[in-house]
């Protein structure tokens, strides 16, 4: 049996081997690059310089980090559950890694096109949760346990809005196949028709990635690093690798599903280099915004986090699916369909803003200022 690769027919095994290697190398390089870029970008946001010492402009910082982590002692607490503790990195990393199978970089540039691509991706990436719980439970550390449980509660809560928002787009695109979804956006990206779904996706994606403002499982100032307090050296770096790989995958999927991937705005007939450039630009934009949000907003509290997911995002995403269903099932004229979809999305965004505003802005004036008068003290009594 053969499979096409770069215009050649190749045995499946060889083809897979080559593609896997590409993915492994790509992932490693991307993660290292992302870590470097994140540090540089965050530094600029904070008016710092970021890494400058290792290599020109600190470019080799991630390499140095990786080398340090490999050559660092791997300590296991005496009280830890050995199996659970040691296996947790696998369960964190492998599910993220198999997500790369369906991630499309450009047309024809992916490991495999699965018909249930989107579904597969979501299913695979949620397994990684198990690893977090294992890490938390196995470490025999209070912070780790709290962090692990928090990550479960958070991830499962945001799994639903994430799934449903992607489903809403899948309804519009009428496919779960990522390549088809992208191809369908040659005219206009889905974000135009599903702005609220995009917003929900973006929020849920940040939450799934445990990044600020949803980083309560690893909240530095509360649980000191959460499930991986006790991890060190190479095992700890596996968590790190998984985190950035997941960020990369999610940003890629987001740009493919909502921003038109490589198809928009030039169409699919453009050459492969241009497609890659487009994908890169869109993914970078997503990642930049994630960094930007990280550097700006405070961490949320667990009850607010849960309430936000269950009381706001979930009902809104259900509503979006119902609206989509109603609009699409009656075969209306194309313009009207799109107008209704976009209108409902925009309305949803406004509802969201309104609810958020209403929930936090109790009437709270600025502090009372007591000016200097001769009887100030008595006057204020």
């Amino acid at each position: 049996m053969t499979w096409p690769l770069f215009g050649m027919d190749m045995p499946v095994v060889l083809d897979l081997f080559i593609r896997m290697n590409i993915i492994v190398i790509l992932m490693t390089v991307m993660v290292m690059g992302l870590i470097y870029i994140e540090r540089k970008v965050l530094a600029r946001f904070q008016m710092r310089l970021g890494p400058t010492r290792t290599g020109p402009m600190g470019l080799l910082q991630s390499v140095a980090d990786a080398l340090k982590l490999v050559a660092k002692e791997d300590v296991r607490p005496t009280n830890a559950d050995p199996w659970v503790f040691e296996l947790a990195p696998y369960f964190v990393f492998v599910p993220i890694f198999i997500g790369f199978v369906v991630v499309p970089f450009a047309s024809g540039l992916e490991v495999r096109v699965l018909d249930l691509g989107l579904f597969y991706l979501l299913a695979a990436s949620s397994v990684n949760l198990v690893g977090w719980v294992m890490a938390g439970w196995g470490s025999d550390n209070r912070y780790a346990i709290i962090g692990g449980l928090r990550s479960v509660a958070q991830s499962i809560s945001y799994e639903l809005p994430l799934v449903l928002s992607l489903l809403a787009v899948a309804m519009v695109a009428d496919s779960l196949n990522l390549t088809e979804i992208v191809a369908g956006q040659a005219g206009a990206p889905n974000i135009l028709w599903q702005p609220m779904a995009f917003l929900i996706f973006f929020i849920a994606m940040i939450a799934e990635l445990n990044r600020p403002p949803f980083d309560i499982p690893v909240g530095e100032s509360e649980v000191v690093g959460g499930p991986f307090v006790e991890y060190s050296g190479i095992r700890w770096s596996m968590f790190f690798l998984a985190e950035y790989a997941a960020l990369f995958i999610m940003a890629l999927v987001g740009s493919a599903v909502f921003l038109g991937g490589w198809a928009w705005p030039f169409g699919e007939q453009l050459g492969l280099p241009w497609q890659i450039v487009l994908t890169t630009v869109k993914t970078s934009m997503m990642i930049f915004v994630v960094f930007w949000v990280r550097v700006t907003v405070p961490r949320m509290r667990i009850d607010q986090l849960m309430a936000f997911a269950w009381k706001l995002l979930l009902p809104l995403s259900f509503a979006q699916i119902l609206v989509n269903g109603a609009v699409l099932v009656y075969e209306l004229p194309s313009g009207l369909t799109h107008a209704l979809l976009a209108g409902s999305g925009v309305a949803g965004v406004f509802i969201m803003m309104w609810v958020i505003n209403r929930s936090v802005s109790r009437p709270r004036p600025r502090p009372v200022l007591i000016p200097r008068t001769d009887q100030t003290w008595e006057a204020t009594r």
Partner: protein
Amino acid sequence: MDHLDQLFGTYAAVFAATIAGFILVVTALIASRLLAPFSVERNKGTSYECGMLPLRRAQTSIGMRYYLYAILFIIFDVEAVFIFPWALSYVEVGPMAYYEMLVFIGILAAGLAYAWKKGALKWQ
């Protein structure tokens, strides 16, 4: 290439990726084992407790808030799995399928509303 081959061709990749992922982790761990120093010291194994000795074993029973969300999640996630195939095929089936799903989601929404009302979504 027939259908089964197609399926094998695609999902073999998933299998291969799983193995590759494990190999990746194992390689890293072996590399670390070879490169990293290793010393046995009695106090190194104490778990981190902000500089104090651990008060007692950490693995106790924990507040059930977390589990309540887990239960809610299982319900809703199973429903979401049902919605997936529906979402891709209801247009062909027609409005009837939509109304059926409306009822389905309505029941779900009632469940959510019930949980909300009961205070299951409140943390305290």
